[in-house]
């Protein structure tokens, strides 16, 4: 499946998805990269579609970006290792929202990635079997990668 075919296929199946031709150079060494922005309620259905119908079975990573007043955005990247198709999936959660569908039922690799995302951004992934902090201690206060988390203020336990 070529870049264009994949793009058309995605648009047909997910009318609400915005597909950007994620400029060849936007993914260095990435071959064919597509950036797809889907509404938050299509997050898991789209991941299923990417895995089962586009053959993107390789789960590369998932994370989030804090766009301050515009709210959080969740990002995941999956690849089809046979054809070289790379898909960067994004969904905007909207201002003040920190809940998202979990991808763990689709990709087992999302387990640790979403735990890290919860740890760093406080996003609650619905359907995650084991949403605990992963890198920080269980008693940590706050979610450090939020832009509102100041770097120069000591947080407990370092007060």
């Amino acid at each position, binding site marked *: 499946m070529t870049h264009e075919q994949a793009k058309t296929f995605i648009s047909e199946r997910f009318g609400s998805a915005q597909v950007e031709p994620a400029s060849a150079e936007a993914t*260095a060494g990435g071959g064919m990269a597509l950036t797809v922005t889907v509404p938050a309620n299509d997050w898991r259905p789209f991941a299923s579609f990417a895995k089962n119908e586009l053959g993107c079975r*390789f789960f590369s990573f998932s994370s989030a970006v804090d766009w301050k007043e515009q709210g959080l955005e969740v990002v995941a990247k999956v690849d089809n290792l046979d054809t070289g198709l790379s898909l960067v999936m994004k969904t905007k959660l909207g201002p003040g929202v920190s809940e998202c569908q979990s991808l763990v039922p689709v990709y087992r690799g999302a387990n640790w990635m979403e735990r890290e995302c919860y740890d760093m951004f406080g996003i609650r992934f619905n359907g995650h079997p084991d949403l605990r902090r992963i890198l920080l201690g269980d008693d940590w206060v706050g979610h450090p990668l939020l832009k509102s988390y100041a770097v120069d203020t000591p947080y407990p336990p370092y007060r």
Partner: protein
Amino acid sequence: MTLDTPQATTHVELDYSGGERLTMNMGPQHPSAHGVFRAILTLEGETVVGVDAVIGYLHRCHEKLSETLTYAQYPSIASKTDYVAAMTSEFAYVMAAETIGKIEVPKRAQYLRVIAAELQRIASHLLWLGTWCMDMGGALGGGATIFLYAIRERESILDLFESLVGARLLYGFYQVGGTRYDIPPGWADACRKTIDMIDSRIGEYEGLLENNPFFQARAQGVGYISRELAEDVGIAGPLLRGSGVNFDLRRSAPYSSYEDFTFTVPVETAGDCFARYRVRMVEFRESIKIIRQALDKLPDGAISSRPGLKSVAQIRIPKGEAYSRVEGPRGEVGCYLIADGSAKPYRMKWRGASFSNLAVLPHIIPGHKVADVVAIMGSVDPVFGEVDR
């Protein structure tokens, strides 16, 4: 345990007649963990039935830190994520910045980057070989034999790095636009001598290991990862290729002139510790091949497309985002970078190869004996700086 219900702690019922379960902490300070890693094992007799992996002991908030450091400052900090293969993460970071900024890298710098990255792969694999064989200890006639050999060879590569950048572990060799240093006079010859020496000795180590029935017994059939599991969890590098996936970024999505070199990508289908060992042993030789070709064809010219740095905030990257990925010794090391037009990134995410590779452990360890946990963990080759970042 069914494959479609993922859980962090997976349990298998083995009908152990004793009916008694024991919880055992392996780590955080355990010599075979290659770092600070705690595995909470649930045992039935000597068989592991559940694993809860606890990581984060080495977390240094790299991603938050990168938002406060400029594009000139961070590359040398990036090397501290995976400190066993420091060149790799620097490489991914500068490539991401160059991609957004559409910064050309001179051909000579591209070749120098390849040489450094491949030397780093050999050094990293040597450390893995030595420590893994030591983990499996007594079975290898004293255990430390291969370790000392491997460290001796690694030392000679670190000497090369020392004469190249002045540092032996964390380099700061890559910078946005090129490399920071050119090779000093006589370095190419010294490099050729070193790789020739290593090339001539790998066969010897293979002989030592593969003719040893204890080694075979401990590595073959242990820690099986299916192709389906490998892709689903997103493990990369030698683990992925050991599970029958023919994928190497250097060939599938060439960067930094890798398309100029001929090399083969080893693939094994067994998916066990031995397959991963075989993949890495072949990669030694392929890396040596690439370095020879790069030294032979090394073009003349500038080593950087940017003027020398006068201030740390000199590099400004326009608004945009990129994901760059390089094939590190442990697999795909990715850097997802969002720039906002200033001298510092807005957001940076590391896809640490070790993080994804380690995430496969809870899926593969249950059903093995405690002693096998050590062999499996060693074959995954995690570096905890990269897991915890």
